[in-house]
């Protein structure tokens, strides 16, 4: 199906996307922890070297730059943007081995670790720093191996990884739909981050379904996307009523 990507892109009824309401987000970090757990993201004793750490959902601190007491901060959770630019996302365009591909049926940009040759072109191409590289083989404390989930394979040294919009949850939902005789293309599912967010800041769904919350919110006057000037067409939208936050959306992270 990747061969006929372009035509299918135009036709598909499904484009999964996410809206993160920064007016609601309190920067607690539950989304990121849920993501790590859901996807067997490995960790090391020292996680403070942010160029080496593995993180699919990263929280960035935005600051308004004002002096005391006009200073304000906000946290911005950043998953993969699942860029919907025509033909290719920036990362899929450069991958020499088709390890990272956009599923034109759903719009999800996947990364298949076993095909990845670790060249890291995609990491360079991604303007959102959404990708991390496995500099080491993952190693869990022995007793913690028991909590690895079988739904997502642990990765290995030398490959890239990133947010998959919890693609395995979509597959489960599609399988369930098929077994129930429903249309797999109309399934809605919730990724781990959206599921646990205590303020309800994260909305997920089909952007092409005009009745979905996510489609409605993406058209909210507060909505914006990161680095829109690059025309990467992210399928992750943010909402904010704060001018100073919206102004930063065209700065690099």
């Amino acid at each position, binding site marked *: 199906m990747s061969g006929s990507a372009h035509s299918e892109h135009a036709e598909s009824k499904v484009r999964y996307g996410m809206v993160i309401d920064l007016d*609601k987000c309190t920067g607690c970090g*539950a989304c990121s922890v849920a993501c790590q757990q859901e996807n067997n993201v490995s*960790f090391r004793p020292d996680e403070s070297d942010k160029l080496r750490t593995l993180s699919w959902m990263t929280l960035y601190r935005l600051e308004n730059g004002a002096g*005391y007491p006009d200073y304000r901060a906000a946290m911005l959770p950043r998953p993969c943007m699942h860029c919907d630019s025509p033909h290719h996302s920036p990362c899929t365009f450069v991958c020499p*081995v088709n390890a990272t591909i956009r599923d034109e049926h759903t719009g999800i940009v996947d990364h298949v670790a076993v095909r990845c040759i670790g060249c890291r072109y995609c990491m360079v191409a991604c303007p959102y720093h959404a990708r991390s590289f496995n500099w080491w083989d993952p190693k869990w404390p022995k007793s*913690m191996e028991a*909590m690895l989930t*079988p739904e997502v394979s642990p990765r290995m040294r030398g490959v890239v990884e990133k947010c998959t919009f919890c693609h395995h949850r979509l597959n489960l939902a599609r399988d369930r739909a098929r077994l129930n005789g429903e249309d797999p293309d109309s399934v809605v599912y919730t990724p781990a981050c959206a599921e646990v*967010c205590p303020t309800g*800041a994260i909305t997920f769904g089909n952007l092409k379904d005009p009745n979905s919350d996510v489609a409605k919110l993406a058209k909210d006057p507060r909505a914006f996307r990161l680095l829109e000037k690059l025309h990467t067409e992210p399928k992750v939208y943010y909402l904010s009523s704060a001018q100073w936050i919206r102004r930063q959306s065209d700065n690099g992270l």
Partner: protein
Amino acid sequence: MSLGRRAFLQFVGGAIGGTLLTPIPWKLADDSAIWTQNWSWRPSPERGEITRVRSVCQLCPGGCGITARLVNGRRAVAVTGNEAHALSGGGVCPMGASSLQYLYAPYRIQQPLKQMGSRGDSKGFKPVSWAEALKEVTAKLTKLRSEGKSHTVACLTGQKRSTMARLWKRFLTAYGSPNFYTMPDAADSMRLAVALTTGRDAEVGFLWDKATYVLNFGAPLLEGWGSPVYLQKVFGRWQTEKPGVPRTVLVHVESRASLTASKAHRWIACNPGTEAALALGIAHVLVRDKLYDAAFVAEKVFGFEDWTDATGAQRKGFRNVVLAKYGVEETAKITGVAPQTIQDLARELAKQKHALVVWGQDKGDKPNSLYHDLAFLALNALLGTLTPSGTVVLVPPDPWGDLPEPVLDTEAYRGAGQTALGRPSTVPRTKAPVNTVLPFLEALASGSEYPVELLFIHEANPAYSLPETALVTQALQKAAMVVSFSSFMDETTQWADIILPNHTALERLDDVIGLPGAPYVYYALASPIVKPLYDTKGTGDVLLNLAAAVGGGVAESHPWKTYEEVLKATVASIAKAGTGLVATAGSFDPASVLPGRPLQPNFKDAADLWNKLKAGACWVDAPAAVESFATPSERYELACQGLMVSISPTAADDLFMPRFHPLKPSGEESEFPLLLVAYASLMLSEGYVPNTPFMNKLLPDDVLRKQDVFVEIHPETARTLGLADKAAAVLKTPRGETPVRVRLTTAVKPGVVAAPQGFGHTAYDEYVQQKGFNANSLVEVQLDPITGLGTLWATRAQLRRA
């Protein structure tokens, strides 16, 4: 067949499409699983049937619903929220979401241990059998009791909102010791303040959903104060546009631009620790301009006008005191808040239909100065929020009545007559319990009064999480025998003689009573999600076992065979009370619960309630409306007559009422020109459990970088000290010094150093250790001169280049 490279890739692409069409429940999105033989050193998680168990989190007092996902019913692989839970919805906090990392932690204690070497030597512990360990503890208990020394046995538990706390208290009462303590809590001082002013033993609950305007003095509502996820949900509702409904306005008062301050609609920056002065300044304007609820004050309040005390002496009332002492200019000088702002805040508050004044500090784990609690309560009283139609309710801690009275034998009576170790005589006698943890530890460390022969420590890590850690460690060394029930080898447990490891929160049946800050009576059961992994025992069962072994009145007071029976008794009394319901999200609207309107039960009987609670639901009821007061004046006492016993009869009039009462920090300003404040965050745990590896990943590299923790200082402060951003420095307070790095930010006021709580562990494992310093080892506790509770606001500090 020969495949070109392009064709090969298409082929693989096709294979992916194919797998997506196969209805196999555990099909993977990526195809690595079928390749695992190539990466044999990388773990391949065992597959199997996936099931879900619902429970309630016990890692903090939040009482959130959780769902655990299990593989083959054995392996827990994820903890998320429970979307059916009425108050936390599907939400969890980062600690709740990583709770499996405590269950599977390498630093768990796997069987009873006994210290064979010298105290404090973490290598000296040797495994012993349960029978042996219990025999030794029983022997000690029996011996002390026969020697008439029962009062020298003490307990400190961190499980404050559980039947466990009641069981410990009961055990000590029946055994004959007044030395029962829980880890410090904002409720320790608040319950005293409520008892003095209203004559009731209750916690304060806030009607968040009803309030249209919330003036918050310092409570980090979005960073772990109160019931964290419930409050995040409330905030989510405030931030959701509802046509025709004006948004609730949150005004936050604090010295530092915390996330709560940033997220608030308005942030009022004040000098550290001066929130109570601002509250009194606002009260001054309300009184001066007659903006207060005159009807409530006239009918229900005592001590607003001048009054006559029991000795017949004339005393000034609140009106005259607040008019004389908290003028706008004076308040502005103390707080650093502009006079105009103080007036505006008062007028805005008075205009509101449903104003709410809340206050607090950190994660609600610090008692406040009694006078400051009184000040915030007074502001609520002036605004009339304590009326049945107001926004503040009094939530009784156990509305359905406690367990039956313990049986007191002679030794128990003797013990009850002893004074709790270190307890000051000034503590007002009210219905509220007294929890003087720090005076107890101080007396223990200094060896004054009487020794402690046996100290039980349960679900708490005081050697790390209490302020003034040095004092705690000294105290631990002075206790003749320390028994820890910890599931983890933490800083405190290292000082134990015997360790009787508890099941972790996810392996045991337990309960949660009440939600801090919420306007509900709340009860939930936490069910185990997996069988215990190791040779551990639930402390409730161990305690019943010890009670039976000690015999006499102690055994008689504990007629239950298992802790489960005790919980069943509690649930039975809830069912018998006949109000309150099993609340489920969707059918239950948290905003609809109003004081004085008890909820109709939706369960058949105690057994039905038990089953529903065990399945992860919670029980909720509305508290009674505050119609009357049980004080000597039968009114809300702005001037607290209950304080007559605590302070000398010749004391000044303002000592009976709310006042701004900062305790002078030690050290000379010339040596320590800065003020150190410590802050809490949901990304950091400073309580019984440490940060998980999952949580560590959240931390920005300007908070923690390798072993260095950053403190925040204003660029101006940095300039005077000659420190550049990220520079290494030494932070010194009268309590100690530590290497730090500085982060320059205008989030803090010049002259202030803000340090994160939750770093600097020395115990546990390599994922936890070697990360910065423990803020608790640098801060200074100040004992409230009346209640003896340990309060904290700011510590004098000095920063110098490293």
